[in-house]
């Protein structure tokens, strides 16, 4: 267990500067956008109404500000998502490729190889949830900055839920409902496991492994998403299934997909990968 924690720590350290970079970029863009847009709005109102600051004249909240400038607030979040998607593959390939042969060392460590898989998975989850936490904190900071810039006469208070809803992408990433949150992140973890497994399958049967990995990735996309999309085709209604039965089928398929991905990945790591 101690070795697993050390491996997780090691993986996090290797990505830390990039992670800090993503965090800094997100913070910088969103804070700068809030300052610039809030100042613009204030200037516009002050020039329009002069010193005639009557209460609640054309008021706005930070929610409105974020809604009006969706793309600016979403841009760094999108960059973070794409970076993490790429890193889900790079986290394995960086050990194989390049001048070093670090994968030799990792595979030879006196710990079960499954620890490598778990450490990389845990590191990825830590990155994802660190960025999410930062985004949550940033929403509060943005709200504070907006309140500081915008005179109270022009300002509406926003609830935290409104802040989250202010940007469609952020609202998607931070669903208020715990059930939806579990659903999204459960699916995300299964897809992450599938990405790991596809990488390890490719590393196991070179050069034909690329075909195997692509076939596996296709199956992992078609089957679990097919179960969800089948609902739209009316298949379940024609089979006479109730909604809770459909949900359980989907949950079962996704859980099975995750379990198979983890099993296949760890098996490849134990028996088939080659340096």
């Amino acid at each position: 267990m101690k070795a697993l924690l050390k491996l997780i720590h090691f993986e996090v350290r290797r990505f830390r500067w990039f992670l800090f970079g993503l965090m800094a970029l997100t913070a910088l863009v969103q804070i700068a956008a809030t300052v610039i847009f809030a100042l613009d709005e204030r200037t516009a109102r002050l020039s329009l109404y002069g010193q005639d600051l009557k209460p609640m004249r054309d008021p706005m909240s930070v929610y409105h500000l974020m809604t009006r400038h969706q793309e600016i607030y979403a841009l760094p979040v999108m960059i973070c998502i794409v970076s993490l998607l790429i890193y889900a593959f790079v986290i394995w390939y960086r050990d194989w490729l390049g001048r070093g042969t670090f994968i030799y060392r990792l595979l030879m460590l006196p710990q079960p190889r499954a620890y490598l898989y778990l450490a990389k998975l845990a590191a990825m989850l830590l990155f994802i949830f660190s960025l999410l936490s930062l985004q949550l904190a940033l929403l509060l900071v943005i709200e504070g900055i907006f309140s500081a810039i915008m005179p109270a006469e022009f300002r509406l208070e926003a609830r935290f839920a409104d802040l989250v809803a202010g940007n469609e992408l952020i609202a998607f990433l931070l669903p208020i409902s715990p059930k939806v949150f579990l659903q999204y992140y459960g699916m995300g973890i299964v897809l992450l496991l599938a990405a790991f497994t596809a990488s390890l399958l490719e590393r196991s049967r070179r050069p034909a492994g690329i075909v195997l990995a692509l076939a596996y990735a296709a199956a992992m996309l078609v089957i679990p998403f097919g179960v969800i999309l089948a609902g739209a085709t009316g298949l379940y209604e024609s089979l006479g299934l109730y909604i809770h039965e459909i949900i359980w089928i989907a949950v079962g398929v996704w859980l099975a997909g995750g379990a198979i991905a983890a099993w296949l990945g760890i098996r490849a790591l134990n028996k088939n990968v080659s340096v």
Partner: protein
Amino acid sequence: MIEILNLRKRFFRKQVLDGVSFAVEPGLITCLAGLNGAGKSTILKAIMGLVPVDGGSIRIDGRETALHLTGNRGQLNRYRAHKVAFIPDRPAMPPSMKMRDALRFMADFYGDVWNGEKARDMMAFFELGEDERLGNLSKGTAAKFNLVLGLALETPYVLMDEPFSGIDLFSREAIADVFSTGWLEGRGVLITTHEIREVEHLIDRVVLLKDGVVAKTFDSEEMRLAENKSIVDVMREVYRP
């Protein structure tokens, strides 16, 4: 003893190993020789579980460790790491890592197998500092540091893959000196090298690979005494008949 029995490995259409058998005994330095592509490095990697083989057996002190027969379940990685140290042809560490961090990494993960004192002695022997990044090291310095990482592991067996590859004369001499020190005392060593002359006088046994099989195995000292032939002479006979 490391026993390699009937090892088979195919890469695409080429049968690289086609029933290779030999043993590495404790206290002896065994040289695995062959032309380029003969499968020498593959055998070393297979012993460490870094390359799966298609058939055959790899027993380390009596315990089966071949991936296709055992996988890496349970404590096998631990067992192997306690028995065998592998020194590949390049340091198996990220190039961005400093030597100090690499030593700390080894101490952290290898625990009781890692001998920090020996590592410090070897760093001093090779006159290596600890602050440089591995990616910035010259080939010679990287080879020396690589040796430190491998030999400071207290294992009964050591595998060395081309320790002299692409390095200058003085670094080669410094590395060859390691064989004369006590750091390899009592350990079973399996070495692959094209620079046979550097270590010829230190090698106890030679295994010559040709066409996927062991073409000849001999005791180098006996060969010298009985037939007055060096290892290179025998290699010429085998590879240039």
